[in-house]
């Protein structure tokens, strides 16, 4: 499936994206022939038949895992390489925090259905749900700046993924962390809401069910019965949705990445399309497909862990 999806993307991208336009605006004006000539070493020469270019690209990917070059000659592999690490930090931290915060809140509020806390957190969540990503990111930036000003020194960075002149293990870790906090916070604020609201309603379906009552009748307190019996049964759909949302978060964090000046996958995806970078765009698509596959496997593993009934015996 991944192979098919990637190849279709290649053909579509090669069809629609015209790398020549990148050169047309240049001064001195170049002839079409010169432009084609300049593109030829990157396997983007429009004069060569599409089939030939495709085969060249495909065999490079297969044999050397070389995903090609951008129209200006930069290697797609190295671009993606460091961006995956950058995005990975952001996405992993934000997803984990969103899930933990969302599920914890859902347990807290579902046990107090229609109580004051339930209504308040729901109000906040619905509000956050409607805040556009850019606004949320900017609000977090302002909050970070305000905090820094009050402290009198720069605790949290509002731009970039690292400082250029840091060396040594611990200073590097601290520096990365200082950069990571704000974008993670802004992604978490937007991400936890879905988990809170869906998990809350899933849990409510289970919280008054007979088996929770049975568990309480055997001597568990209400909180214990909810955690051990109701939550586990209702986590299964959430676990599946988390796993499948990973690829979307990787490439979907464009706005947050842009506001915080992070060179991540989302930003790269937009750039490649804007700059007619056929190979770059295809590589991003292939990456998304790969993540989806991994997500599906993770989802299956999560379901097996949570629900022993599906284990093959």
């Amino acid at each position, binding site marked *: 499936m991944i192979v098919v999806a990637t190849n279709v993307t290649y053909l579509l991208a090669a069809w629609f994206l015209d790398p020549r336009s990148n050169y047309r605006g240049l001064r001195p004006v170049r002839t079409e022939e010169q432009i084609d000539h300049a593109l030829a070493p990157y396997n983007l020469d429009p004069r060569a038949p599409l089939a030939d270019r495709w085969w060249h690209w495909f065999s490079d990917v297969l044999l050397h895992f070389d995903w090609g070059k951008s129209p200006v000659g930069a290697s797609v592999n190295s671009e993606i390489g460091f961006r995956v690490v950058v995005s990975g930090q952001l996405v992993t931290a934000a997803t984990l925090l969103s899930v933990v915060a969302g599920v914890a809140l859902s347990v807290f509020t579902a046990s107090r259905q229609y109580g004051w806390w339930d209504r308040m957190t729901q109000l906040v969540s619905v509000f956050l749900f409607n805040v556009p990503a850019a606004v949320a990111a900017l609000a977090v930036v302002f909050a970070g700046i305000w905090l820094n000003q009050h402290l009198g020194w720069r605790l949290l960075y509002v731009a970039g993924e690292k400082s250029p002149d840091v060396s040594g293990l611990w200073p590097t870790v601290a520096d990365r962390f200082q950069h990571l906090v704000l974008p993670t916070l802004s992604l978490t604020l937007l991400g936890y809401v879905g988990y809170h609201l869906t998990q809350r309603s899933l849990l409510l379906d289970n919280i008054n069910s007979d088996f929770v009552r049975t568990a309480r*009748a055997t*001597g568990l307190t209400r909180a214990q019965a909810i955690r051990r019996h109701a939550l586990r049964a209702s986590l299964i759909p959430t676990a599946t949705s988390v796993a499948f949302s990973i690829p979307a978060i990787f490439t979907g964090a464009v706005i947050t990445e842009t506001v915080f000046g992070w060179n991540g996958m989302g930003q790269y995806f937009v750039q490649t399309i804007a700059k007619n970078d056929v190979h770059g765009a295809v590589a991003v698509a292939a990456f998304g497909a790969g993540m989806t596959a991994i997500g599906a496997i993770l989802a299956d593993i999560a379901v097996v862990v949570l629900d022993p009934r599906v284990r093959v015996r």
Partner: protein
Amino acid sequence: MTVATPGTHPPAESAATAPVLSVRGLSVAFPSEAGPVQAVREVSFDVLPGRTLGIVGESGSGKSATVMGVMGLLPETAQVSGRVLLGGRDLVGLGDRELSAVRGNDIGMVFQDPLSALTPIFSIGRQLSDALRVHQDLTRQAAWNRAVELLDLVGIAEPHRNARAFPHEFSGGMRQRVVIALAMANSPSVIVADEPTTALDVTVQAQILDVLRTAQTETGAGLVLITHDLGVVAGYADDVAVMYAGRIVEQAGANELFGRPTMPYTIGLLGAVPRPEARASGQLVPIGGEPPSLVGLSAGCSFADRCPAAVDRCHSQEPPLTAVPGHGQVACWRAPDIAGGNPAASSLFSPPEAAVEEHRPDRQVPGETVLRVAELARTFPITKGALLKRRVGTLHAVSDVSFALRAGETLGLVGESGSGKTTTLLEIMRLRPPEHGLIEIAGTDVAAPRSTEQTQRLRRTVQIVMQDPMGSLDPRLPVFRLLAEPLQAVGTDRDAVRIRVSELLSLVGLDASLADRFPAALSGGQRQRVAIARALATEPRIVVLDEPVSALDVSIQADVINLLTKLQRELDLAYLIVAHDLAVMRQVSDRIAVMYLGHIVESGDTEDLFTHARHPYTEALLSAIPVPDPQVERSREHIVLKGEQPSASRLPRGCVFADRCPLYPLLDGGTQQRCRTERPLLRPAASGTDHRHACHAR
């Protein structure tokens, strides 16, 4: 074959021992938009060790709220007052943490619906050992071993292997055994069973009640048995409390209560229950009216509006529960009069006028045959795999079913769940060529090609009434639209629809003012009347009834049964009824067919079948119905069948009942061989009757 004679009273000295559970003045109220709902009011009772207290009442009478209040499992919004003394300690007002130390340890609980009472994602053994480890300091292994012992005790076969099974691999009866094991795990001093057998088949019910008894003897606990089934109470309770509108209205020993009921409600309730052992001598005696709403109760006795013995005082002042010599405790101003025989208990409730005339006068005059089913068979493929469905087996839901139904006659299909009753009904309702066999409705073979118009005419001839009137009526349509819909579907014009709808309402005894109400605003009995009116709208000749009264309370059930009988007589309808309640069946059916695993194993005239059952399965089924009379119930022999009805995916080659047959082990080798290899055919039990049964041994 197990022959159990339940109901030997414990020796009298146990009455002197201290109660393990004392409830004093327990009240429970739930806030609602209309005001507080007084679910339980001033309830007091004692539970003695080793004895069983039965709490009887209809839905909404506060039985469940009472025990949930005892367990501390009510929702947090409930307001509880009074005292619940367990071993001298008051449980009311304790926090969740303190109560959880009591629950499971001192009080065990068995719930109604075993299918949903167990956590689906944990193995049986895990749930049991968890329950043990909550209260006892056991290692994992020790708890597991104890769990296996408990499973063995409640009669789970191969407990070592089955402890690793998950709830969905178990049948309802087996799951209820597990729930009982959970309740008795920590040897509690009180076991509370809330409708433990309501969701189960009648033959399984007998097994589960035996297990409950085992649990009680094993732990020496006092048992609180909540049920709406007076038969179960008669067989298993030592003392009985009858609840009505949140109060205990009569409390006495089982023999006194059933033998000499004093509170008019109890008298009415006992009169409204169809009795399996009594022949259908006449119509049931309904109480009339509906239980009151529990919001803003009036000052008087809550039963006064339905009570034939009510006097002025009953409407203004609520009677307290007072002792009446020889009768236990009764909450009724007229109790001393009724106890003294004036008015006599038996004359309080009179049967409806229609019953005075000869019951079913046309019984001997069979009409023309309106429905004929011959050699009907229906199978379902069992498939496996998500993407590519492989057929791995065949479920034989109905095999070789034949019967005929005449106008004005009622045929009852009886059997446990999974015996193919409902599939048979649906095959008839489908009006399509059956997979195998023949269905003939009013002389028309459904398999014959026909025009749309003919199909519509055929469709008008057969109508259905479903079990649950809440689910079968669209909640968004008012009664008028519900009744008009089938008429519009057959092309009746507007004015005719209006006339017909009011006709239908009066036919089923509903007030015309109900026409613009929505189903949610109707009571259960009224809803079922609407469902019946809807079925009658197109003037059918055959009405198929799928468990028509099983969702209704006893006092209302009698009303609906009487209505059905009246309608049949007036409209010359043919009824095909499916029900699991044999006592109801005896009341309504002219003929009965007993089904097991998709086969009719015995059929015949109702009275003949009840008095001279030939097939061992029919015998067991009849013996398993609890009789609402402690004398009868405790003295007769019960045939408790082993196991449960097997899956219909692998039918045995011979008799389908051989595996559970109580007769089979007693047979000689040659007959056993026949039972195993040759499927018995229906043959006449005696010459000259249409009583037929399928058994090699009888």
